[in-house]
């Protein structure tokens, strides 16, 4: 199998706390990988290393087989990694178009913004991707009044706009309604159909099981095990998750 992302022997500590210990993690081409684990298992730390936000203390990261040194957020993006963060990473007091282009505003070489282009693109995305038709919302709307699902929609649309190869979704269903959650899971299936790959992190085992090709279980900073979803039933996976949380071992 071709791997888009390979991480080997990744360790990361914050002061006294060792968040990740010698973790191997990989994502294959056109593969949806579910990342499961209890609170504090190290899921968020792992994905923030992939996105270049944290540097690992040790270990190796390869994109398409090529080792990458000193990964930063802009570097990870250039490699096609787009992230929908648990925190959404939006700026509530700013307009929709500023949020869509947050941190990578369209500009000329001198840094002068192309405001008209960004607003037009936002308008197009609103109709094509987010399905907004109401005239009450436009690119100049400030997003503080948006619902949780609408904000999530902004974060997802943003990730897609920049032609992601690998989409990382960190607890994307948090705070969403049932309907919004179903939309989100369909969105993950769309990623698969488009031939891209994704890392999907969620507390809800059922959500992860229903969309992932492979599930990786993280426990106290280490990989406890991994399963192809076609080889394991949802109930078995659930049992193993409980056992890991209690005993630290899958069996």
């Amino acid at each position, binding site marked *: 199998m071709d791997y888009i992302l390979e991480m080997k022997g990744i360790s990361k500590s914050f002061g006294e706390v060792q968040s990740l210990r010698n973790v191997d993690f990989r994502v294959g081409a056109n593969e949806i990988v579910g990342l499961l684990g209890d609170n504090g298992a190290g899921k968020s730390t792992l994905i923030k290393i992939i996105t270049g936000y944290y540097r690992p203390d040790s270990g190796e990261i390869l994109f398409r087989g090529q080792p990458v040194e000193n990964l930063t957020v802009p570097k990870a993006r250039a490699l096609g990694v787009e992230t929908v963060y648990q925190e959404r990473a939006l700026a509530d007091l700013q307009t929709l178009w500023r949020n869509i282009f*947050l941190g990578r505003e369209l500009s000329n070489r001198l840094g002068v913004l192309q*405001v008209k282009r960004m607003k037009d693109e936002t308008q197009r995305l609103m109709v094509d991707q987010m399905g907004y038709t109401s*005239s009450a919302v436009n690119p100049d709307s400030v997003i503080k009044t948006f619902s949780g699902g609408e904000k999530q929609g902004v974060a997802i649309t943003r990730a897609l706009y920049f032609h992601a190869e690998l989409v990382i979704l960190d607890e994307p269903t948090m705070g969403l309604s049932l309907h919004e959650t179903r939309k989100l899971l369909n969105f993950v299936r769309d990623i698969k159909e488009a031939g891209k790959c994704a890392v999907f992190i969620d507390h809800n085992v059922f959500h992860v099981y229903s969309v992932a090709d492979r599930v990786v279980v993280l426990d106290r900073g280490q990989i406890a095990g991994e399963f192809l979803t076609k080889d394991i039933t949802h109930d078995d996976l659930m049992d193993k998750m409980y056992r890991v949380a209690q005993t630290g071992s899958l069996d």
Partner: protein
Amino acid sequence: MTARVENSKPERVRLAALMQFARKNGLQIGIIGVMLGIWLLFIIGASDTFLKPDIYRALMTSVPYWGVIALPLTMVIIAGDIDLSFISIMAVGMVVFWEAYETTSSLGVAFAASLVSGFLVGLLNGIIVVRLGIPALIATIGTQFFWRGVVEVIRRGQGESLTLARDTVLRDVLVSKVGGYVPAQVIWMVLVALAVWFLLNRHKLGAHTYLIGDNEASARLMGVNVGRTRMLLFALVGVAAAFGGIIQSLDVWYFWPNLGEGYLMTTLAAVFLGGTSVFGGTGTILGTFVGCFIIGAIQPGIIAIGLTGYWTKLIYGLIITVSVAMHAFVRRRME
């Protein structure tokens, strides 16, 4: 019947567009309303003064001394920081101006050296705040005292006459009376306002300024270079402070080593009155610009109206407190 429906729809759309314009520009409309209200009050209460041109010439003369600093300071405050040291940077800039002139006998070199020194001193503020992680409020109280102290040690209380700048290009360009009436410094203040407006609204630096003040964690996650942006904003205030110091000193023909003292409250009051949130994330250049002239008019206004000058500080204090409290109130209602 059909005709009525056809008529009412564009009207409704127009009304909706008007509503959105009002919501989007509420702060700016508000500050212009405040300005007109206070203006009317002064015209009624002291028509002798406020219906004659002299008062307006006086405002255009003295407000730019610190108004040019309030404009970039607005960006620092939008980013969630603050700078209290600019009043000392004004004096540092003039010390450098004088020393450079003494050495090279060139006003051009002195001018450039002064601006560069302002940039560097401002950048140092930024480095202290960002790299050492000291809250800007505390860090810039420290640097305010430090740089004032440096000026006092070097100058030992001595001022300098600047009559040597008589009939020079530099003084003519910076502070002469254009058309015999309009002080050049107010034109410079307009130019600085346009430049800062452009940076804030049409440049990446400004986009990142809003993001950092709004949600620093989001800005970091999305790859904004938070530290560099904040440091650069402090440096811009430094340049503006040196510029303001030069304008003031050339205009009054004298460099006083206590240059800048007395401008701290007016400058901050103008920014906050102009609608910039002390919590960061929102604020406009138009608001600060108008705020500067309102604050500038208050002292002559209350004296012309018949109150004593003892009222000035009370009213400045009231303005700062009320405008900051209004933001806290609006913010709480939003949550």
